[in-house]
């Protein structure tokens, strides 16, 4: 008797429903950094041009917090902070209670 073949659609189709509601990764969820480039001849051509992103701009979120009434970031005095928009990777560290101490980068390369 021929065994039944079960095909479960768990793959990553070309056009995913997920793409229709694009979402970034969570604050504090840092991508693992231990990957090693593959050997020459295997590594995709385009990645041969990968270069370290500009030095991160550290935003000290211990001095900022999200004000749920104003719905924007405020400083220690409760005034809107209007943190300067960065032009590259931003490293944020926070112990303000929004989340536990964490770090993240906000790449604004588009």
């Amino acid at each position, binding site marked *: 008797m021929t065994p039944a073949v079960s095909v479960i659609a768990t793959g990553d189709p070309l056009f995913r*429903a*997920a*793409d*229709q*509601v*694009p*979402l*970034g*990764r*969570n*604050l504090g969820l840092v*991508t*693992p*950094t*231990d*990957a*090693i*480039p593959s050997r*020459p*001849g*295997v*590594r*995709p*051509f*385009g*990645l*041969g*041009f*990968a*270069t*370290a*992103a*500009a030095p991160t701009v550290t935003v000290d*979120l211990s001095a*900022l917090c*999200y004000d*749920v*009434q*104003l*719905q*924007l*970031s405020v400083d220690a005095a409760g005034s*809107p*902070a*209007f*943190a*300067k*928009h*960065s*032009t*590259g*990777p931003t490293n*944020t560290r926070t112990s303000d209670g*929004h989340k536990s101490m964490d770090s993240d*980068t*906000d*790449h*604004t*390369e*588009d």
Partner: protein
Amino acid sequence: MGCEPTVLIVTQPFDVTADYVVAELHQRGVPVFRCNPGDFPRRLTLAAHLDEGWTGSLHLPDRHISLDEIGCAWYRRPTTFEFPDELSAEERRWATAEARLGLGGVMAALPRWLNHPCDIARAEYKPVQLQAARAVGLTVPDTLITNNSQEARRFAKERGQVVYKPLSAAGVYEDGQYRLVYANRLAADDITDTVSATAHLFQAWVDKAYEVRLTVIDDELFAVRIDGQSAAAAIDWRADYDNLRYSVISVPGWVRHRVLDLLDVLMLRFAALDFIVTPDGGWVFLEANPNGQWAWLQDATGLPMATAIADALTKGPRP
């Protein structure tokens, strides 16, 4: 809250660009409901019932909004759902899909967006936007997308110099650091067989006098000339922000008309477009960023982009 429609802003809490617009809306007395899918399901609660359209509400611990109070929604930089650590990876994957199609689906059904997330997603495809740009009459560099290294070398040889640029903005984490791929100038001999490893985009090199970031918000255009002051910035200004000079310029009428046509074709009300201006004054379209950043240019030039965004979020549909 009165009768004025509420602006729904979908983004993460430390999105400083959104802060500019929230403040502008506060000044106008426009009610705002800012939320992040990252708060779903633990802090953000959805209850939606299908009537003539979707009715119901979104609840945060400190505020709520009825779906029928929402005038226009702004899709900025939301982050993904967060589930309890106790869930297995498979349970989390399943719950994420349900959340995306449930919360995301109800949001996607809202009638007015700046921009609708599905339109953002479609316009992110460079092949789609490049074809649309050419169709509306914008000048677009000769472009090849291929995983055939011979084709890539032939394309480069015929044009002398080409640019390789990635199709997405994603970088890679390797060796403990985050790496990005910018545009790089190449000759045919620089192209290796590892083009076969995935899709690669090549464009003919275009001599430039300077580059322009053109931010379009409905029918308002904000053009900023960007002069790269270093070798890296001269090829791709994103590679060296510290060596850029910004100045406000006007947009030729024919570019304006075609850009507005492009946004219509892509069903976008907002986009940040990149152009090369050639030494003889031609405007060459490079790419459209349907959810591109703009606040750093407002900081640098004083252009009132947050005001224009607030206008777009509070006025009626574009005629």
